[in-house]
């Protein structure tokens, strides 16, 4: 299938999804991110790779954390960053998504970081730019509906590689609300592309999408079985509106079956790492003792996230 995020030479033009993204490009992004981690530890945390470039943070859906990490990443690359919370501006006045894009292009945008509540919105923007001969402007998907969150997927891969080195030897479990999770979809695509032999999803039937096995994962409903022998445990955020209703009876019952506790974590390998994309619901999907415990790499994920986003923007800008 045509891959709209690569240009005719097979180079990264946009970052829309990890599905179909070649392993070499993923590897290059992760390698590029390594030196960016140390930049953050310097006194002067800036490099001039995106100097003079205008990066627009286009957030059609509320987000503080992701927007902030993109903003920091762009600023560390010396780009000019413009934050737009579209949720409360133009679309509320009736402007269409593509009109908004055209207006920002007229302001000479070089890159759009897009968060949207609808699956496929970044694809639509990229396709619109290409159809109107403006493909030099890059689109980075910062989360679209349930579809994808590729920079989160990449930072998860970076974290796993940092602690575990070889994907080809790993067993990774992703636990919780996979159905609504763009984080899970992106991570699954990344892990399978890099040759991870065993990717598991763990959750009740109500929170697992139909035919999820087709993505190359093994399905577990029993968390204890699913965690057995895992090197990496990725806990997903459960949105509060889904804690009570026809998907789940209560947050308490969810925690009982699928919350990660110290006791359940013992079923994984002794050196297993625990990840979470944040923000965490302590006592719903994860117990504080685990979140703050020795296996947790949740805060390093945040640090790595900035480096990975710097790498993505830097590669897109042609460095």
């Amino acid at each position, binding site marked *: *299938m*045509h891959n*709209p995020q690569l240009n005719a030479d097979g180079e990264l033009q946009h970052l*829309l999804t990890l*599905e179909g993204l070649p392993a070499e490009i993923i590897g290059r992004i992760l390698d590029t991110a390594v030196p960016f981690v140390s930049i953050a530890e310097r006194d002067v945390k800036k490099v001039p790779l995106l100097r003079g470039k205008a990066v627009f943070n286009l957030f059609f859906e509320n987000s503080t954390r992701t927007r902030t990490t993109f903003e920091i990443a762009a600023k560390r690359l010396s780009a000019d960053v413009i934050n737009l919370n579209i949720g409360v501006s133009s679309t509320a006045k009736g402007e*269409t*998504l*593509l009109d908004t894009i055209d207006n920002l292009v007229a302001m000479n945008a070089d890159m759009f970081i897009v968060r*949207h509540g*609808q*699956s*496929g*919105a970044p*694809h*639509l923007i990229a*396709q*619109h730019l290409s159809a109107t001969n403006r493909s030099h402007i890059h689109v980075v998907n910062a989360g*679209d*509906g*349930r*579809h*994808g969150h590729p920079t989160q997927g990449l930072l998860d891969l970076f974290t796993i590689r940092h602690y575990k080195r070889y994907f080809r030897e790993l067993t990774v479990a992703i636990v919780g609300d996979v159905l609504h999770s*763009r984080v899970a*979809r992106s991570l699954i695509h990344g892990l399978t592309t890099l040759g991870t032999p065993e990717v598991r999803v763990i959750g009740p039937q109500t929170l697992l*999408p*139909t*035919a*999820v096995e*087709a*993505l190359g994962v093994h399905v577990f409903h029993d968390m204890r079985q699913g965690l057995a022998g895992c090197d990496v445990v990725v806990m997903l955020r459960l949105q509060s509106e889904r804690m009570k209703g026809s998907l789940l009876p209560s947050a308490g019952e969810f925690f009982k079956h699928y919350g990660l506790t110290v006791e359940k974590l013992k079923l994984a390998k002794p050196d297993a790492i625990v990840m979470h994309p944040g923000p965490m619901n302590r006592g719903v999907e994860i117990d504080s003792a685990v979140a703050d415990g020795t296996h947790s790499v949740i805060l390093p994920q945040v640090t790595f996230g900035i480096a990975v986003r710097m790498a993505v923007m830097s590669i897109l800008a042609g460095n």
Partner: protein
Amino acid sequence: MIDPRHGFDRKASLYVAAGKVAAVGEAPGGWHANRVLDAAGLVVCPGLIDSSARLREPGFEYKATLESELAAAVAGGVTSLACPPDTDPPLDEPGLVQMLKHRARSLNQAHVYPIGALTVGLKGDTITEMGELTEAGCIAFSQADAALADTQVLLRALQYAATFGYRVWLRPQDVHLARGGVAHDGEVATRLGLPAIPGFAETIALDAIFELVRATGVHVHLARLSTHDGVARMRAAKKAGLPVTCDVAIHHVHLCDVDIGWFNAHCHLVPPLRGTRDRAALRAGLVDGTVDLICSDHTPVDDDAKQLPFAEAEPGATALELLLPLTLQWAKEEKLPLSAALDRITAAPARVLGLDAGHLAPGADADVCVFDPDLHWVVAPSALRSQGKNTPFLGLELSGKVRYTLVGGQVVHEG
């Protein structure tokens, strides 16, 4: 000349006088032609009958008008069409239906047969004045794609229709299971993160409808079948002698959920494009007669409403001008004779709509389509008369182009 209803398929001349077919083969005595259409190398067949084409009037004139869509109809060889009641306001009052019929007649293009709303405002709680609506010109009653969640109301609507012999058209879909869904519940929707509609939303609704048909004896036409299991249920129901018929939209004959690719909003259709197994079953059902006919399910949508993320984009595709070439392609792929292809878009829909049309016996209305089966053309916005340019087939080369369309003996289209 091919007339599927009469099994006629050979080289012959068609003689038309006073709006009717005067003779086939031999000229009537003292024949003098005002005009001769040279159809050498072309196919002459009954004008196409489309069992579902949205004309968007009244209420959605910014998407399409009777002028634009009836011109599209005859350009596609369609001489009669049924339009669903989901206009604004819906076709739930005789005055609206009379106005629509009057406007269509004054344009002197394809015949328009409105399908009346089954419930007032398509809201699913009060049944409409089906008698008055029938007198105004409605040929059947339906909810279009609007929900009718209350089974008791559905039962009563069917009982009432059965009492007077009205036909009811229903699109089988459980409203609760379909809530919020925009794509088939399978691997593609899972990959793309699109809210999904399971295939059994169709079979559960079909089972309920079949029970009510058994209870009331009403003739129900099932619109837009989409699943493998739906076709199987339909086959069993027909075998059991239930008075039911069904159709499939031309898109579902050719496409499946994989064609959504990366969120192609032109593939956002109702019902959703389903899996390859479903498509194969629909095609097999068409071949063996379980599925009676093919319709265009023509739904012109303005560009702005399609230039949105997949789920927010308005569903539907323009298809009046694609019905013939896409049906020919289906027949070619299935290695069926041309007459079988034309049957599904002429004689079969005439039967389901209860029209004396779709055939060319002497005395029949001279609604005729003359087309070149081998003329190739590329589907492009400029090639379409319809105001809607929204189709998943954009850019595709198709063979089969209408050269002349006659309605009531008058040439209304020359291509």
